[in-house]
């Protein structure tokens, strides 16, 4: 255990954890805003009650996203000070702008929304949740632009005398093609995640507590499932576009993700390949001819470079060294991401099928409903693990290796304390958070009466405020 390994574990643990909550926030903000707007436009009590129900789940989730986000900003400096010195001229700007443009917007307007019931004019009140939702999306773009620069650095020059990368073209960084496509992919995944939670929760209520707000939960299960399916399609399309971009910009990542050792033309797609532990014998190998060529290049006869050839190329470009990421991890996380996402889409399709023409799913749907919200969470995590581990050994592709980015001041004990500390704290928070979510779901739709014809401001935020 050295500080480098521990710092990597810490980044992995805190970031994967943070990203359980981020997509839910990104998606639920808009779904809550949608229900609130529906209530504002139609005046139907059901939409008000749904706004509060989904809004409550959104807020419970949002709180953890906020506090774990603090750690994200601090740990670049704490654990990765050499990285921060090298990239600060470029990487710092999107972070600062994210705070100024997005975090102020979401935190301030969510405060207004939570406490604004009965205090703000109804139209203004609806606007606050829409502005907060906009803030969350803006924040996603800026942090992904920062990450995209690590995957595909643009608009910079390396100043060797100063020992850092320097910004030459801000617009190029802000409109990095990797950032744009990743943003759409992540937003689509966020809607998939939020849709899965809403659909799963509503279906669970519908099947296990029939006769209580059936109409509202049926509608919600449908809305959630439809959002999930549309988002799933967008995830697949943008994922495909990312794959082609990756082939051009980070060929080693796609080769490792496919465990393609030698360059092939045309290249077959490995559906499942299992090798013996020492990697010499292939035990299972199911391949679809030409498909990898198409996925990577858009042409069924395209050439896809293999790990061994890329390793030789990189040694020529960057000097001696091992430029191959962990192949089993990239191979499996890539497949598990796609697999978990596809399962979620199938579950949503099945929900819609079982609910057609006013029918009700059988009790068996309860298990699917309970499992559904967790599938996208798994897919999201696998996706990030794939893209971050697939970039290794680089922290900034082609410019700086991860081992060079770690804080030289970190001692093993220091990092051990923080890894264990954050992990234990995060674990405890997860227990509390899931407990609260489950409680809210068990309670069902809150009553709406308190909001209407308010005489006393006190009752205004009965459902939300403190």
């Amino acid at each position, binding site marked *: 255990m050295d500080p480098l390994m521990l710092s990597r574990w810490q980044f992995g643990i805190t970031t994967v954890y943070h990203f359980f909550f981020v997509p839910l926030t990104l998606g639920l903000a808009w779904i809550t805003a949608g229900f609130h707007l529906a209530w504002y436009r139609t005046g139907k009590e059901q939409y008000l009650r749904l706004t509060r129900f989904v809004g409550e789940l959104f807020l419970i989730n949002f709180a953890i996203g906020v506090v774990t986000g603090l750690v994200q900003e*601090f740990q670049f400096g704490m654990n990765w000070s050499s990285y921060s010195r090298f990239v600060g001229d470029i990487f710092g700007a999107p972070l600062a702008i994210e705070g100024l443009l997005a975090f102020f917007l979401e935190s301030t307007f969510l405060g207004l929304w939570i406490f604004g019931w009965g205090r703000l004019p109804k139209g203004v009140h609806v606007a606050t949740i829409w502005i907060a939702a906009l803030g969350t999306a803006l924040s996603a773009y800026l942090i992904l632009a920062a990450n995209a620069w690590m995957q595909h650095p643009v608009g910079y020059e390396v100043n060797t005398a100063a020992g850092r990368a320097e910004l030459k073209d801000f617009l190029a960084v802000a409109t990095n093609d990797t950032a744009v496509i990743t943003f759409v992919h992540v937003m689509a995944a966020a809607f998939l995640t939020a849709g899965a939670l809403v659909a799963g929760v509503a279906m669970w209520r519908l099947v296990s507590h029939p006769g209580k707000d059936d109409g509202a939960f049926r509608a919600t299960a449908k809305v959630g499932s439809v959002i999930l399916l549309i988002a799933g399609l967008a995830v697949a399309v943008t994922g495909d576009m990312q794959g082609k971009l990756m082939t051009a910009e980070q060929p080693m990542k796609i080769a490792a993700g496919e465990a393609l050792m030698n360059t092939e033309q045309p290249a077959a797609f490995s559906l499942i390949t299992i090798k013996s532990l020492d990697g010499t014998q292939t035990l299972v190998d199911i391949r679809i001819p030409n498909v990898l060529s198409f996925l990577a290049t858009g042409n069924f006869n395209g050439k896809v470079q293999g790990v061994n050839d890329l390793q030789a190329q990189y040694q020529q470009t960057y000097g001696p060294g091992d430029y191959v990421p962990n192949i089993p991890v990239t191979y499996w996380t890539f497949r598990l991401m796609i697999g978990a996402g596809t399962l979620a889409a199938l579950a949503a399709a099945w929900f819609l099928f079982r609910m057609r023409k006013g029918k009700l799913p059988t009790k068996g749907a309860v298990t699917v409903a309970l499992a559904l919200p967790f599938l996208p969470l798994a897919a999201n995590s696998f996706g990030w693990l794939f893209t971050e581990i697939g970039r290794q050994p680089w922290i900034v592709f082609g410019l700086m290796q991860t081992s060079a980015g770690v804080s030289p001041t970190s001692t093993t004990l220091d990092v051990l304390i923080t890894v264990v500390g954050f992990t234990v704290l995060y674990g405890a928070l997860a227990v509390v958070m899931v407990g609260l979510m489950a409680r809210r779901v068990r309670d069902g739709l809150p009553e709406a009466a308190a909001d209407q014809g308010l005489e006393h401001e006190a009752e205004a935020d009965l459902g939300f405020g403190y």
Partner: protein
Amino acid sequence: MDLTTVWFALIAGLWIGYFFLEGFDFGVGILAPFLGKNESERRALLRTIGPVWDGNEVWVIVAGGATFAAFPEWYATLFSGFYLALFLLLVGLIVRGIGIEYRNKRSSTAWRTRWDMLIALGSFIPALLWGVAFANIVAGVPIDASKNFTGDLFTLLNPFGLLGGLTTLSLFLTHGLTFLALKTEGDLRARANAMVMPVGIAAAVIAVAFLGWANAQRGSTLSEVTSVVAALALVVALVANRVKREGWAFLLTGVTLALAVVSLFAALYPDVMPSSTNPAYSLTITNASSTPYTLTIMTVVAVIFTPIVLIYQGWTYYIFRKRVSVDRTPVKS
């Protein structure tokens, strides 16, 4: 003025915003379990900061981000150097944020009492540690030729650092009390008003000692003048409290905090992190800064968006300007 100086001033401005705003909600967080005698009182106390605390906290996130963008070397040295102190601070901020959001999500008394204690502790730790951090930054810490901090947690816990911590803690408590006096009614208001004087006098003594010591170590005309005015502002705040001018008292405890920040930054300038090992190793606004191009971009963004942020945050305070009363804060079942 050079852009590096502009950004040094802007970062000072972000810390002013942070101390002015989150200063009072740290104070309220620490005081709530002790000042509130029953559930509805504690709830009313925390409600005064409910709609705004998260927006207040963003000031420090932006300060951190701005430091990263404008002075990457400062960000890197400070965050990697003050490692365990920042870890403790983060744990405090995490626990208190969750506490404020979750305490009313269940009606169980045990649940609420536990969160109230965690909110108090999670407010106490950062209220103390920000002062420790700033005192050490101003006094200088061991930094080597490659800009790396060479001390540990206990390097920071020196007498001057601890006095700095007590300064922010006591000033935040005073600021929290003047805020509560302004935002509550009845008994709570009377209790908060009564506590301003004793806590404020203690804060004045500690702050004068700290700022005096800071200026003796490294002072400039500006830092000395602002220190004196900060002390005066606190005295006038206490007078305003005596004559029941609650708005003025709150504003002036805020001004005290703002001027204390100005004083520390003025003492620091043009260094950002002086080295106690060798003055030649000090980080300055020049050797720690980003390129002029990056600073220009950042300046454009800041000039356009900071006024907008101030307007809508100000509007929020206007919307929630009413006092919070115990009677109108129902206990949710």
